[in-house]
């Protein structure tokens, strides 16, 4: 990725260039979302969270800071995915006591971050909630959906770590999809292309899209679901 294009975008904020930069890196967001899959949250939601985070990263990236865009974007996307899991609660089987503590932890982290102007430490969290530091650590481990029990349940004997953690060469067939994503998008009906573009490239919410396109939010939701299913199918078939 030539640095000049980032410098150009930083000054021009050109919409077309922004679209290009987002499209070229959307694969990174998708792969990161894939890393967090099978952890109790729908994959589509993760891709959506990751894509929006990528758009933010493109908008906020400062080419003068001496960091590669991919490094910067990875941090941003991971941060948003972590936050998503934290906000979302979880789908993890854990004792009720730990579940409740985990939910309380989420609120307390937000509140203390506000108050302190930085993320809190474990002793500070333990103090504030009135439990031991070990309980906080236990809740983090048990509760963070992105490393949920399904990941850590005893595996089959010949299963490798790569199989389990959903690395790129395991599980879902993953090729470098950057080159095939564009045609997959192009294969969608026009209305769906537009909705997908507004959602993932422009980062609009479903309601915003609904009012812009003049359809209901439910309809937007259906179109998005259909589009993603279709894209996945096209990718799977190698179109």
């Amino acid at each position, binding site marked *: 990725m030539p640095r000049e294009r980032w410098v150009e975008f930083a000054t021009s904020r050109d919409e077309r260039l922004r679209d290009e930069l987002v499209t070229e890196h959307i694969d990174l967001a998708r792969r990161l979302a894939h890393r967090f899959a099978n952890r109790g949250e729908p994959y589509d939601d993760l891709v959506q969270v990751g894509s929006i985070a990528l758009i933010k990263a493109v908008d906020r990236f400062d080419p003068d800071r001496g960091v590669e865009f991919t*490094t910067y974007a990875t941090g941003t996307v*991971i941060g948003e995915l972590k936050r998503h899991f934290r906000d979302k609660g979880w789908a993890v089987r854990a004792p009720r006591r730990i579940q409740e503590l985990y939910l309380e932890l989420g609120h307390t982290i937000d509140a203390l971050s506000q108050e302190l102007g*930085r*993320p809190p*430490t474990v002793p500070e969290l333990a103090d504030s909630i009135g439990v031991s530091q070990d309980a906080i650590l236990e809740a983090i481990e048990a509760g963070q959906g992105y490393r949920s029990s399904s990941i*850590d349940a005893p595996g089959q004997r*010949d299963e490798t770590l790569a199989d389990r*953690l959903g690395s790129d*060469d395991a599980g879902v067939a993953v090729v470098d999809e950057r080159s095939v994503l564009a045609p997959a998008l192009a294969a969608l009906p026009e209305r769906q292309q537009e909705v997908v573009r507004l959602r993932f490239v422009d980062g609009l919410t479903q309601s915003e899209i609904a009012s812009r396109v003049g359809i209901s939010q439910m309809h937007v939701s259906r179109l998005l679901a259909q589009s993603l299913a279709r894209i996945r199918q096209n990718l799977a078939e190698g179109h």
Partner: protein
Amino acid sequence: MSDTVALSLPVRSDLLVLARITAATMAARADFDIEEIEDLRLAVDELCLSVVGGARSGTVRLEFTLDDATIAITCELDRRGEPDDGYVPAEPDDLSIRLIEALVDEHHRDAGTGGGRAWLSKRRSRVEH
């Protein structure tokens, strides 16, 4: 003051939790903030994945060193004495490298005793206790 904790585990994905708990516990004791601890937990997973990802046998040796405000973690796959099953240490996928890059301050890798070895370190951002 410097503390070192060592773990020696069979290659099994369900034991990875021990690596995360060890890292999180040491970092919490050293007053890392909760975001840094979450990053460290993710980085430990990726570090192990990048070293032992495709292995079906061997011993994973982990060493955690806490030195003031920096935690360093080494993960090595020891396959000495294992029957030759044709295993070749794989190049870590670039996503693992990107993740580690984004989550910690420093990292590098080498062959270790032949099975592959990777190292990372993360500094606590806050200076004051």
